[in-house]
């Protein structure tokens, strides 16, 4: 069974704080993703990574950065948190095989920025 874990289920931070969200997967997947989910807006891709130290911007990268130093770990960083970054953050991983890739999700982190 693929397991994707996220460091916190709920997080409350203050405006201007630096925030780290950690994600770990245990299936040796090459691809890892960070999304945010907001009501009525679906899942929006922030960043993804297809290899260690490799990253690509998703649809809404502004205000975020990422780090992938090890294959199993993908971190999302909010350099200076703002109230409009209050959201549910979802990490996913996948393995591309035969042109097919199913993404496996972690439980999510509900971040509130005050």
């Amino acid at each position, binding site marked *: 069974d693929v397991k*994707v874990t996220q460091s916190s*289920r709920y997080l409350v931070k203050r405006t201007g704080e630096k925030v780290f969200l950690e994600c770990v997967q245990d299936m040796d997947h090459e*691809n890892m*993703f960070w999304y945010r989910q907001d009501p*009525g*807006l*679906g*899942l929006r*891709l922030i960043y*993804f990574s*297809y290899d260690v130290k490799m990253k690509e911007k*998703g649809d809404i990268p502004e205000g975020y950065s990422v780090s992938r130093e090890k294959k199993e770990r993908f971190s999302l960083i909010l350099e200076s948190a703002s109230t409009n970054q209050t959201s*549910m953050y*979802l*990490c*996913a991983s*996948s393995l*591309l095989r035969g*042109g*097919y*890739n*199913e*993404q*496996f*999700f*972690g*439980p*999510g982190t*509900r971040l509130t920025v005050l």
Partner: protein
Amino acid sequence: DQQVKQNSPSLSVQEGRISILNCDYTNSMFDYFLWYKKYPAEGPTFLISISSIKDKNEDGRFTVFLNKSAKHLSLHIVPSQPGDSAVYFCAAKGAGNNRKLIWGLGTSLAVNP
């Protein structure tokens, strides 16, 4: 511009009846389509997928139909159960070694006892 559209934000059905969730897409190069289910405060979980070379895939109570000429797919849940109440997301994958999925906005399904 949304390449994957779920035009119904919500759907309500009676327990035991059929639930039909719809998804339209614009890009004829998508080669796989996936459905995910999401409960509140949890991550999405994979439900069922279909390759673009097929027109139907079935897994227990869940069946996905693909109509390529209409660029339309639908998820049928028969019979619907209260535990099926969740948000359902349709996602599509670009052809070849494309690593990303393109997501619809989701449809919230309520199955009433």
